């Protein structure tokens, strides 16, 4: 799946098949899964019978009854279209995924330890535990773990990332995903998931909605909607005897119209579309959820555990400042550092070179001939250069360079080194001819914008905890700079797990991400565990979400998707219920005005006639579903804010809007109905 492919909301490739699928969904056995719409369908069928009776008997008002019946069918149909469109978007994604799953022959090893002896078998025949040889150009048929060799793998089909990644046996980069392709070298893969059970398959099932189970909040909301439907059934069913007692008469089809406009068809019709679309948004963000429950739980998260490296800071430490000793010019120190770092291939060495270059004219030290370059090694912990003129330069860990200088220390040097260490940074000393020149301050650079991200999370009520292997001193400094709420220093898998348990005991929901096998227990314990796709199979098994991009920052996005899903449901429910007020003012006067002409005063919208009022309310009720499909699929707008602010804003838009919009809408439709003389 590629990230670039993003279907527009009303793409004809989605809409056209959805129109057909929506018809098939009218099957009552399918409709029965959605009680609100099922009631609507039964009522639509009933009014169709009334229409036929009127036509056959020649009495009543068949034109009006026929129109009401037709619009009731439309109501059901439109709800089905919404669901079919949501599923269609998922299917479109699934189809591109499925394209990678062509049946291929794979080379199964006959003996586990002999790469030369293999047989060609169909990928469908693979069992977990089988070992296969995958060579350059071969497709990896299903998920597995590299047990031998190293290869670069093109994972763009899954992640959309075009640069190949390295996969090797042992360590945290041993996991491979079905549907990806080896582009160089060869590896032996032990199969961990049979065909049909791989991530790819899971993702396809998920986006197609085939395995979609209702999430807990959806179940609760459904119960409420059923309850409201029951209440309105009672309201309408008992209205008949009350009307008769009052010596009036109301046609059955009018009561039927009242029922459908009152029961929460808007949210009932869009509920499953909202759920499917929520999953779709997650898939679009390249995250695979093992269950919808996890997505919903993401919205409830109280505490977010974030790994420092990669999430909060860039992976490696970088040069951040030069501190020359007294009597040394900064430019002099920069030149020495630049020369001494040219043979240092580590990211830290590169960053010194980059930083020093900024202080040098043209970014280089010109006119110096280097006799010998001393490369950085983990043993010596320093790098350097011996120049043609006999000058020797060294740069490296403070104690290593001081030792090279014959142990000569000075108070200013010690002071600078200690100050940098205490602030959580790493001091590197630069020396020339066994004499220290100054100190380079290496530090973790906090990613730009991350501080604002955490401030947003705090406003949403989510607490962030930074996890790091650093000592408490270093951790505190970075935590303060990044603006996290808390940190866990010298983290081990054990104390990480303990932290999660402690938070959970206090009633909080915890999310974390991880990739290593030793993360697995914590991932399993967390309420939302996001495993990196590059992680080990154990980690992927333990998490309930998998990020195909292996981007730890994604956790924040997942929380947003979860919240947006819940807000969409709540907002449309509120809108749906608030709509009923206007519908009453349209329909009730129409029903009762013949019995009590004074009740015409309730016709505040000034609708043309009883028939037109009822027809307009029914039409509005059907059209509002269509109008809200884009909102249901896209999700309501969500900007991080405190609960109080969100509530105020959403109540204003969907609560107050839900009260006002139908007054305007029904009146407009009524004008049209009278102009066209439909009723």
């Amino acid at each position, binding site marked *: 799946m590629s990230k670039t492919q993003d279907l527009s909301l009303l793409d004809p490739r989605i809409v056209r098949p959805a129109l057909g699928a929506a018809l098939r969904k009218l099957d009552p056995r399918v409709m029965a899964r959605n009680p609100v719409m099922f009631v609507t369908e039964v009522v639509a069928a009933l009014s169709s019978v009334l229409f036929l009776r009127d036509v056959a008997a020649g009495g009543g008002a068949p034109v009006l009854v026929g129109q009401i019946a037709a619009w009731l069918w439309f109501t059901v149909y439109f709800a089905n279209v919404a669901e079919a469109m949501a599923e269609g978007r998922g299917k479109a994604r699934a189809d591109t995924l499925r394209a990678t799953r062509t049946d291929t022959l794979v080379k199964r090893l006959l003996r586990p330890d002999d790469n030369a002896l293999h047989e060609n078998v169909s990928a469908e025949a693979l069992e977990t535990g089988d070992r296969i040889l995958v060579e350059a150009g071969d497709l990896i048929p299903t998920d597995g773990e590299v047990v031998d060799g190293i290869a670069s793998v093109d994972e763009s089909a899954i992640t959309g990332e075009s640069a190949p990644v390295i996969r090797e046996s042992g360590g945290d980069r041993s996991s491979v995903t079905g549907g990806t392709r080896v582009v160089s070298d060869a590896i032996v893969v032990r199969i961990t998931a049979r065909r049909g059970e791989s991530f790819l398959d899971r993702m396809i099932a998920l986006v197609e909605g085939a395995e979609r189970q209702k999430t*807990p*909040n959806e*179940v*609760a909301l459904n*119960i*409420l909607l*059923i*309850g409201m439907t029951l*209440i*309105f059934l*009672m*309201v309408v069913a*008992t*209205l008949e*005897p*009350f*009307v*008769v*007692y009052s*010596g009036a008469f109301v046609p059955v089809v009018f009561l039927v119209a009242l029922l459908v406009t*009152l029961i929460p068809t808007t949210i009932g019709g869009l509920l499953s579309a909202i759920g499917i679309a929520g999953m779709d948004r997650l898939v679009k963000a390249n995250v695979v959820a093992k269950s919808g429950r996890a997505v*919903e739980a993401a*919205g*409830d998260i*109280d505490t977010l555990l974030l790994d420092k490296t990669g999430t909060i800071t860039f992976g490696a430490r970088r040069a951040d400042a030069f501190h020359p000793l007294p009597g040394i010019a900064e430019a002099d120190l920069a030149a020495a550092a630049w020369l001494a770092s040219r043979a240092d291939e580590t990211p830290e060495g590169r960053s010194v070179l980059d930083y020093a270059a900024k202080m040098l004219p043209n970014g280089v030290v010109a006119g110096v001939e280097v006799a010998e370059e001393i490369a950085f090694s983990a043993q010596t912990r320093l790098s350097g250069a011996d120049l043609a003129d006999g000058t020797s330069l060294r740069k490296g860990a403070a104690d290593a360079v001081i030792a090279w200088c014959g142990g000569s220390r000075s108070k200013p040097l010690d002071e600078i080194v200690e100050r940098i260490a205490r602030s959580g940074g790493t001091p590197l000393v630069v020396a020339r001819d066994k004499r220290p020149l100054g100190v380079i301050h290496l530090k973790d650079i906090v990613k730009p914008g991350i501080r604002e991200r955490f401030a947003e999370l705090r*406003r*949403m*009520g*989510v607490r962030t905890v930074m996890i790091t292997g650093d000592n408490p001193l270093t951790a505190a400094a970075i935590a303060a700079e990044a603006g996290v709420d808390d940190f866990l220093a010298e983290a081990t898998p054990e104390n990480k797990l303990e932290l999660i348990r402690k938070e959970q005991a*206090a*009633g*909080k929901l915890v999310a974390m991400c991880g990739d290593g096998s030793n993360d697995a227990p914590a991932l399993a314990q967390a309420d939302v565990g996001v495993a990196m796709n590059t992680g080990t199979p154990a980690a992927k098994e333990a998490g309930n979400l998998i990020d195909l991009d292996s981007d730890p920052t994604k956790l924040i996005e997942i929380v947003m998707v*979860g*919240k947006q899903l*819940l*807000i969409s449901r*709540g907002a449309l*429910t*509120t809108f749906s*219920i608030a709509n*009923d*007020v206007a519908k*009453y003012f349209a329909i*009730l006067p129409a*029903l*009762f005005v013949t019995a*009590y002409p*004074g*009740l015409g005063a*309730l016709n505040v919208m000034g609708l043309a006639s009883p028939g037109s009022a009822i027809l307009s309310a029914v039409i509005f009720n059907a059209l509002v579903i269509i109008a809200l499909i884009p909102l249901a699929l896209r999700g309501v707008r*969500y900007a991080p804010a*405190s*609960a*109080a602010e*969100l*509530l105020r804003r*959403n*109540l204003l838009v*969907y*609560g107050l809007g839900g009260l006002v919009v139908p007054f305007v809408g029904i009146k407009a439709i009524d004008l049209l109905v009278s102009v066209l003389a439909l009723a």
Partner: protein
Amino acid sequence: MATDLLQFVLYVVALTALAWPLGLYMARVFSGERTWLTPVVRPVERGLLRACGLGAEPAGQHWSRYALAALAFNLAGWLVLYAVLRLQDVLPLNPQDLPRLTPDLAFNTAVSFVTNTNWQAYGGETTMSYLSQMVGLTVQNFVSAATGIAVAVAVVRGVVGRETRAIGNFWADLVRSILYLLLPLSIVFGLFLVWQGVPQNLDAYVEATTLEGVRQVIAQGPAAAQIAIKQLGTNGGGFFNANSAVPYENPTPLTNFVEMLAILLIPAAFPFLFGRMVKDMRQGVAIFAAMLVLFLGALALTYGSEIGGNPLLADLPVDQSAGSLEGKEVRFGTGNSALWATATTAASNGSVNAMHDSFKPLAMLAPMLQIQTGEVVFGGVGSGFYGMLAFVLLTVFLAGLMVGRTPEYLGKKIEAREVKLAVIAFLVMPLGVLGFGALAAAIPSAAASAPAAGPHGLSEILYAYSSATGNNGSAFAGFSANTVFHNTLLGIAMLLGRYVFIVPMLAVAGSLAAKKTVPASAGTFPTHTMLFVTLLVAVILIIGGLTFFPVLALGPIAEHVAMLAGQSF
């Protein structure tokens, strides 16, 4: 009119000033803390509990055991009351030799008093012996109120509890609410009534000859004791047929004011009890505020409609400067009648000092709507509060999703189970009022109990079934309720309205108590703000309104527009 408004203000201020400390006191009582009555009452409480074989500190119960205990206790109370009513002709203390009650009337009356409804299909002085009044009705006045209080306290414990299975002990709560609350208040209040002139004797009725030479029978009896608890326990069943309009029940302006306070006192104290028990008074104040807003709205509608006089009488030589006085005691006037009607229907009290049947259409709409929204505007003792909590849960669930989290109330997640239970409870009012009401309207012999025609007749039927299902007990005077049909159906409505709220709400309590408490954060839905109060009021009005608006349009609203057009029914 200015004095009326002044009195309304005085009433609200006095109510709040009394309810707040009482709520704190009740919270101490039910938390087992020491109060100033403890030295006197504790030995009695111990003795009673020991005598029942429960030990001085009975262990907490699972919600199902709690519910079972409440149901069993109420069933036993019903059986005793039914027996007393059916046998009163052979039992002592019957100086007027009143006959036994018919089976259907005894069923209805026993249900009515056990469910704290106190719907009266009979006239007190012409039906009930002194023994029936004292041993039968007054006892139920106490214990039905105590049952409601106990259940409400258990529900609050469910909200407070952390991962526990127990929500308190029914027997201990029952005994405490009587010994620490209902009895002391009733004794003080009863003595006050005696001082003001309410009879408290066991004499035979007095015969007198009026100035016109007509023979008049003046009923006597142990009235003061029963009236005290009838108001405090939101029972409302009058000792005399005309209830609190009779001088013997309500002799002076002072008794009128104090009795109105007594009607709402304990229900209004519950939000404050809640605030203290959840250790956040703001939560209690928010609920109190929502109740008060609804109360003032209903009062404004009732009083505003009544004070305007009746347009149908405008052309007659009738002085309507004091408002519409039909069906009112002139000594109370429009202000006191409207305030009483609003208070008695806000609380599920049901005692009346004016005839609601004679109210103008919109003035009868407000009391009816207060009942139909489930008696949650202060409501019955205890029952009003757990009913309100059901609405709070609904509001939190509806609006809570909109902040992007699983809805939670005071740290407790509101999930499918709670929603399901609350929905069951919410189905009761529509079933009792609309379902049973429609049945009554559809069967001609049953509909004949309503003497009026058209919309007013419909209002009479609706009011009866609302009153029964809402466990209110007040009635439109014209409705002849004492028929086999209505006695039975109204009895069933009362049972549904009481127990199909109690059992689901106790189950909610059990479910909430077992949950973890999520600590509050900036992402938590705030339930103590003005916005929440507004939202809660809106949900109650919209849900209640949506359910009952169609039929109210055919009843009071149709009558109102007809009245404006010069037509009466």
